[in-house]
């Protein structure tokens, strides 16, 4: 899960980024409105966390611009403004969810996971794929009913695959959704991660579609 975090506060921004990374997310942090709008228009994100009061350009302006440019990524507005009138304005600009500061990081994570799950077209919180199950509320994977231990990179790759199970995800897109914007990506590292995941969940589960990308197959047991 790669998140665009837009927060101008020099302490809160990095603190949220740390908390999200602790939950296995890849996080790009933008501290002003102009950077934020640019990143949202050019990079691939699973979701954005957007502050409303920003230098350069307000959150509502950024959101309106993204929606006008056809950017459909789920956006959670995270703001100190708690009035319903502000909430209405944010949703009219295209927000998908709204959380007021101060907040619980668990709640932020849960809402982000729900946004990403719904954006991928899943109504149910539990996504199953053969012996594999993803509890999208908590971010826990299970294999044959037992908790599956994953590193942050493994989790990012597998959550992408299971949210679009049975669909080929292009390698470049997968790379984009797994690594942070300023990461020094080794072209082979994705293969290494896929290899480790195959050892954990069974090699036949992750199909390599040559020249295109990867697909998680559920082995004829549709969930």
């Amino acid at each position, binding site marked *: 899960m790669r998140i665009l975090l837009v927060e101008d*506060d020099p302490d809160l921004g990095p603190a949220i980024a740390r908390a999200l990374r602790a939950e296995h997310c890849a996080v790009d942090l933008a501290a002003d409105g102009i950077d934020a709008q640019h990143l949202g228009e050019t990079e691939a994100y699973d979701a954005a966390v957007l502050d409303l009061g920003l230098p350069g350009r307000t959150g509502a302006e950024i959101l309106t611009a993204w929606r006008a440019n056809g950017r459909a990524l789920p956006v959670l507005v995270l703001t100190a403004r708690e009035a*319903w009138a502000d909430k*209405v304005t944010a*949703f009219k600009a295209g927000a998908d969810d709204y959380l007021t500061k*101060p*907040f*619980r990081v*668990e709640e932020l994570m849960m809402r982000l996971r729900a946004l990403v799950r719904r954006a991928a077209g899943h109504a149910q919180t539990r996504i199953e794929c053969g012996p594999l199950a993803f509890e999208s509320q908590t971010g826990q994977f299970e294999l044959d009913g037992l908790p599956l231990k994953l590193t942050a990179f493994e989790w990012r790759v597998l959550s992408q695959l299971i949210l679009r199970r049975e669909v080929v995800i292009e390698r470049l897109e997968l790379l984009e959704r797994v690594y942070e914007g300023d990461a020094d990506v080794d072209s082979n590292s994705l293969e290494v991660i896929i290899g480790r995941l195959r050892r954990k969940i069974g090699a036949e589960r992750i199909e390599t579609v040559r020249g295109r990308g990867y697909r998680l197959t559920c082995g004829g047991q549709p969930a």
Partner: protein
Amino acid sequence: MTRWSLRTRMMLLSALVTLVALGLAGWTMAGVLDRVVTGGVDQRLDAQLAVLASTVRGDGSVDRDKLAARQGALAAGPSWRWRIDGPRETLGSGDFPVLRSPFPGPAGAAPGPLPPAPLDGEDAKGRIHARRLVLESSAGPVTLTAAAPGRVIGRPIRDALVPLASVIVALALIFAIAAWVQLRFALRPLAALVAQIGAIRRGERTAVDEAQPAELQPLATELNALAAANAATLAAARQSAANLAHALKTPVATLALTVAPDTPEAAQVRRIEGVIRHTLARARAAAVNRRASTAIAPVARDVAAVLGTLYPATDLRLEIVADARIAIDAHDLAEILGNLLDNAARHARSTVVLTAAADGAVLTIDDDGPGIPAERREQVLQPGVRLDEGPAGDGFGLAIVRDLVALYGGTMALEQGPLGGLRVRLTYPGGATT
């Protein structure tokens, strides 16, 4: 030490003036009365003296036959007495009292026969009023004295003074009542002003009536300026408290992210969050605009659009009579409907219904969720209390709404709803506005 009241001062002053004036009037009248009565008595005494004088012969002897013939003119009544002191003999009433002359000195020094001189004296029965005339005869001076009892002067004066005093006391009473009524009438605008200032303090009005008697007009103007300055100071203080609370949200959010959960530090962070919320709610309450009139439907549609995004599976139905309006500021109405519909949608299985009557005086929000048992309904209105253990919601929504509704003079009731879940009923006694 309390100063004397205006009423006391003015009543005292009025009483003093009345007493002095009436005292003066009484004293003057008594004096006039005394002169008139004494004058009458003096005339009779002088007439007696003239009778006595006519009996004295040129040689100083008394013509007793003549005296006896005129005795009738001398017998005016008991205790009216007379005396003739001549060089040869002394005649007269036997019990003639000792009299003090206001002109001590040799009797012979008295100048001429007229006028008679007044004398005073006393006997066993009281004061004596007398007149004396000295006649010159060949044998020497003859002193004639006629005396009347004091009561012939005192009694008529007393008889006249009793009704006079009654009239004076009655006048004093009338003056006192008039002064009291005047005071009441004059001080009534002051009492009204005091009542209005009390109303300002209780927040029932923002200014006193500027239409005042000329003497109170500057006071009313100054009071209103003071009240306005006070309100502005208070609003500024609340706004700055709100700004402070608002500015604290981001650092507190940072703190909340950095402290470990379930530690004393985390509890302190939650306390700070509570204070922030409370301060903001109070500042918002202070900004309540009671003269607002808002169309319900557009606000409800905006809020419902938000909730439609947040709870896509919930069927949110708005049954609002077209053009229904309510006397609540649009911002606060969004707050009320947002919190209540959010709460309902969070607990609903599939359906939430908002109804608003034509006059906007009754709003109901129903859901088909589990509802709240009657005995716990009051409990959920306490700030920070949540009955469900799910992660969503902050537990302040219902309490905030209840306080906000109360600020606008409405009431919020939790009931068993027709859909099986909770019904929240908002009632505004004077809610209808057009």
